[in-house]
């Protein structure tokens, strides 16, 4: 379950009684509902599922996964 895609919030606005955002997914822009994520701000990276924001992404935590898998320094390494 749960196809959710990361995108960057570009615009936040109220429309027709809903809190909406225009979110940029790598150049493709879509309207996303922020009723489920009212604290999201312009510039935030958020996770989007079924047209709704699920959570704001934590950039530092994202980096940690990559650090975990970064190549380990060899002992007695190369010059």
């Amino acid at each position, binding site marked *: 379950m749960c196809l959710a895609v990361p995108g960057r919030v570009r615009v936040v606005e109220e429309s027709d009684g809903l809190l909406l955002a225009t979110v940029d997914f790598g150049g493709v822009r879509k309207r996303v*509902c922020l009723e*489920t*994520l009212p604290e999201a701000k312009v510039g935030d990276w958020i996770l989007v599922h079924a047209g709704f924001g699920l959570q704001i992404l934590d950039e530092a935590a994202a980096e940690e996964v990559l650090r975990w898998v970064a190549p380990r320094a060899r002992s007695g390494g190369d010059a």
Partner: protein
Amino acid sequence: MKYVDEYRDPEALRRAAGRVLDGATRPWTLMEVCGGQTHAILESGLDALIAERVTLLHGPGCPVCVTPLETLDRAVSLAGTPGVILCSFGDMLRVPGSRGDLFGARARGGDVRIVYSPLDAVRLAARTPEASVVFLAVGFETTIPSVAAAARWARKQGLTNFFLLASHVRVPPALAAILEAPGCRVDAFLAAGHVCTIMGTSEYEPIARRFRVPIVATGFEPLDILQGIALAVDQLERGEARVEIQYRRAVRPGGNPAARAIVEDVFAIGDRPWRGIGVIPDGGFVMRESWAGFDALRAFPDLLSEIPRESPACRAADVLRGVLRPPECPEFGRGCTPDRPLGAPMVSAEGACAAYFHYRIAGAAGEAGAESIA
């Protein structure tokens, strides 16, 4: 794509698999409970990298597969009802009930529309006041906030022609049911990361304690899954049984309170049937009395003359609990194929049985498995 590509880098995946293997002194069996994770594992073939030490089982993580037959039959019946527009996520269109699927209902003249978001169904209701718009609402805790938000928006606009045919399920009781079943061979769970994004991780604490199993809230990219597996194996090797978060970029222990508040307004926790398993106490959500006016079951009673029953040959219950691997089922590929499924896990591409059928290249005779990597 940022936050996506980095977690699919082949070299990183190989190193991650190495970490898993380095940390394991003996074989372990892990279960993931999420169609999205099943999909990622099968698409990348990453289980082959760690097969020496880790067996991955696919649990009932596909809400499409676990949607009860009677819900599907009601949806098909509604689709054929004059004056009704049945809206659904694309995933549900080809799932067979006992009288065909929604695609077939459309062919017979039913008004069936695919939506990407439940809000689209509400917009449709606002545009077509003469029709009754019913949204087939399925999904785990990840999706239910969007459904609840859509219902609230419909109420806010004063709509009286928008209804939910709701069948939402909760993961934690399913994990407990799996662990309680005799023959369970699951050592640890990967919990569905997006479910935890909403719900947080506290619901899993009692399960980890009671059954002494590690539970790691894991993301969906191959690198996330490998790290989740590594963390689970680490705990197992040390005899620990904690709830841990791998998917920290999206999961906070407290989840998303705003989303949960929206859900609590519209839904209450209740018993729900899971196709292939049976009724799981507190296994899902039911619409509250205050929202009865939006409940399709109330607006359209008597859709079914009888509750349909599953094929007796289907071993879904054992597959979904991880007790039986799909290729071990006598009907797999014989009496049961995706075109003519006997039960739930063969129904959608992410169901365990369908996944094996579609993706796996046969290895040893009688057992399907990913080929070894050249």
